[in-house]
């Protein structure tokens, strides 16, 4: 069930009505039932995987709790040494248990999502090495949101393991945390400590909050249906037939894909956050004006923030703060220059993060390279930083000045767009082909001679995309200046307010790229 489909809005309406007519205490049950009805409707028998995930993390959580309780009991009366030995033993046991939980939860994801990739690549390597045979290829369907809820499940057991919070004793509450229907398809990837209580607390009907949720949903629909789905037509025309395009066609397609992905993914987040807000649930932000970033690291702190946050908290820190890694860092410090000692450990931990980020997006070499592309830029930035410092000092460049910062934003924008090109192409071969073709036959006249109007979208479509983009930029600028647009609008008199609301609703209804004239375009991140 797509978040832009009419069936979703009917479903949401029914869920909202049921939620608010039930006594407060039981409202979370309505959310639970609605979420699993949503899941079953969209994914049928694959519901078994999320249920499996709920059961395993529930049991693992309780097991970790039990170990802690037993430890507290057992250490009573022990001397310091015995306590230390017991603690080490318990820590080992807890580590084993949490790893067991992680592995169990990752198995379905790895098997269903990556089996064919590894099967194909291993066969290739085998053939290259002269070992015959062919590993099987299966056509699995991915359970809805498996890449998202698996990460949420792992974050839960990891946090319980770290003692951030105690494991819940109610498996149904855990089931709601993983399967909450607004965030199951594309995230944001939730954290139990931030989301749990909000989900279980019965919220009162708040007219202002509900209407603001609906407004946010319409803003998301505007970005998705009016801007992203229109841009997608041009993008698909070029990328699906890339050998026949070059120069400005590829540049424009790349820029439009960046716009498409941002408008679509952030639009989806607005829809799901608006949906959740209607129930009184505040989901984590996933975007914060990423295109004003001065570096790619900053970009990733503003783009798909919950994924970045997950890799930071559950991959980067555990690696870089692990005992063996600390030992390694000390060794490097002792044997290498301070510069290398500072860079090397971070670079090694970052490799795992960016390899993981890449492969999380999909089982193919290009996604791995997509992750590593950002890794290389970041590491190159770290390595060349002293050099740049010296150059800029000599040239007396004001690195805090507006011009320098603007150039940094432009540089980051270019890097990000090249990354988007890699992200959208089918494979590395087509990426290199398209990248090269941008610089051959760079025919600027296509921008003015009407050639771009023959790419599946017409003059009116391009005008709508530009107007939509302007509105997105205005919203971004106002947001960056700390203006809460919804609250600002709410503060206006009813005439102004309603004119704006009507304008937004009618813009979606009239300008939306839906219906028989347009192809059905799903959400890109829903495939991950």
């Amino acid at each position: 069930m797509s978040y832009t489909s009419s069936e979703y809005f009917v479903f949401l309406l029914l869920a909202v009505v049921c939620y608010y007519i039930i006594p407060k205490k039981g409202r979370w049950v309505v959310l639970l039932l609605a979420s699993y009805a949503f899941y079953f409707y969209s994914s049928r028998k694959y519901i078994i995987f999320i249920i499996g995930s709920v059961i395993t993390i529930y049991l693992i959580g309780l097991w970790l709790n039990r170990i802690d309780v037993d430890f507290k009991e057992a250490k009573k009366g022990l001397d310091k040494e015995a306590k230390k030995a017991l603690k080490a033993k318990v820590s080992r046991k807890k580590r084993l248990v949490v790893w067991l939980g992680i592995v169990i939860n990752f198995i379905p994801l790895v098997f269903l999502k990556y089996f064919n990739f590894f099967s194909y690549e291993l066969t290739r390597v085998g053939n290259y090495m002269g070992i015959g045979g062919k590993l099987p290829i299966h056509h699995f369907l991915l359970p809805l949101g498996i890449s998202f809820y698996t990460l949420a499940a792992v974050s839960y057991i990891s946090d319980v393991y770290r003692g951030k919070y105690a494991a819940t004793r109610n498996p149904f509450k855990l089931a709601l945390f993983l399967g909450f229907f607004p965030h199951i398809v594309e995230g944001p990837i939730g954290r139990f400590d931030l989301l749990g209580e909000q989900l279980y607390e019965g919220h009162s009907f708040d007219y202002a909050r509900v209407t603001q949720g609906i407004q946010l949903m319409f803003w998301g629909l505007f970005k998705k249906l009016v801007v992203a789905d229109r841009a997608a037509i041009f993008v698909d025309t070029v990328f699906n037939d890339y050998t026949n395009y070059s120069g400005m066609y590829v540049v424009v397609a790349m820029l439009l894909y960046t716009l498409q992905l941002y408008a679509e993914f952030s639009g989806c987040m607005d829809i799901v956050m608006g949906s959740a807000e209607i129930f009184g649930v505040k989901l984590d932000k996933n975007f914060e004006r990423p295109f004003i970033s001065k570096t790619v690291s900053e970009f990733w702190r503003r783009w798909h923030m919950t994924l970045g946050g997950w890799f930071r908290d559950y991959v980067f820190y555990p690696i870089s703060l692990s005992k063996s890694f600390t030992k390694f860092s000390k060794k490097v410090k002792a044997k290498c220059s301070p510069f290398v000692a500072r860079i090397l450990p971070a670079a090694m931990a970052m490799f795992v993060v960016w390899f993981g980020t890449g492969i999380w997006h999909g089982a193919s070499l290009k996604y791995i390279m997509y992750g590593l592309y950002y890794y290389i830029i970041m590491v190159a930035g770290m390595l060349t930083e002293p050099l740049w410092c010296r150059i800029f000092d000599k040239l007396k460049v004001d690195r805090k000045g507006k011009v320098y910062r603007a150039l940094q934003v432009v540089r980051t924008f270019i890097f990000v767009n090249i990354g988007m090109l890699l992200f959208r192409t089918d494979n590395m071969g087509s990426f290199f082909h398209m990248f090269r073709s941008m610089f051959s036959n760079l025919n600027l006249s296509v921008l003015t001679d009407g050639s771009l109007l023959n790419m599946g979208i017409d003059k009116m479509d391009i005008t709508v995309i530009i107007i939509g983009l302007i509105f997105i930029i205005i919203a971004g600028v106002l947001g960056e200046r700390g203006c809460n647009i919804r609250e600002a609008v709410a503060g206006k008199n009813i005439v102004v307010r309603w004119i704006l609301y009507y304008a937004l609703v009618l813009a979606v209804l009239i300008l939306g790229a839906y219906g028989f004239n347009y192809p059905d375009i799903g959400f890109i991140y829903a495939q991950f």
Partner: protein
Amino acid sequence: MKKIIVNIIKSVVFLAGIIAVVAALGPVFTPKGNTRESGINNPKAKDYLAEPDNTIQVVAIGNSDIYSGFSPMEIWHNYGYTCVSAGEGAQVIYTAKNRLEEIYKNQKPDVVVFDVDELFYGNFKVRVAKTAEAVFEKYLPFVMYHDNWKLLFADEETKANIKYETTYYKGQMIDNSVLAVDPDNPPEECHYGDDIPYIYRKTFDEFARMCKDHGTKLLLIYSPTYNTWTKERHDSIAKYAEENDLDFIDFNDGSTGVTIDWSVDTRDGGKHLNSAAAKRVTLVVGDFIKDNYDLTDNRGNDAYKQWDSDYERYVKKYESTKGEAGKQDVDSGDKSGKKGGRKHHDKGKES
């Protein structure tokens, strides 16, 4: 309490305002012609909108099986009955009912030929979604035709083509090419059930009643199909026809004498008939109409001269596609469940 009442009133007024605006914009956005430039959905199936009032004797309605497997021009040429097809890919009965209502606004057909294949189309989800879409089309045409705002800014050439225009193909997809069924990759079987689903049956009752009220004979046919016919489906329709005193011709049970060779009679690997097979099917239907219903033969009538020249164009197209190799997914009719996509202009490529 007062605040709650005020909020409820505000919400109701706001929603009513939206509905009023959408309803008011409906006539503005509804197509003012049946050409592609008019912004109408499925222009090929809308020939009937352009035919002079009360001139159509036979109307064929159904899904892609009808626009592929039934030839209005063969009916004209062989029997002298004016005939149009209003077949649409993935049509559901509610859409068929909408079409019939539109047809009755200007026409008084003597016979409606209805292909029953669409009565079994889709699982529950698809049935509800497609029916809801058809309901929207009827009551809120704005939603379906929202994209016609572009016509306000269209160039003169496009504006000149916003008109009602008859066609020579009369709703048929004339394609005489051949793409045999691939035994290793035949069309997928799509059996969602053998009984007419409740939601369809209710609408079909209304459809049949509408025909009866207008004095139109409703002739049910089950076009030859590679993958959607079952004996049980035949029995369901036969029972319905008997209960409602309707005629029913099934081309799949061997009763008509029409045999389909799926290595030569299909244009797209078994999903749809080609025009040669359509001709054979149409002649059986034409014979049945001639033998059982009292229709006037209009051949030689000066008022219908245009139909003879349309037939010539039809033959030309029929002959020109003969011997061509067919293609998979030439159109995306109901067999694939996907609606026609974006109108793509000629692709601009680097020179």
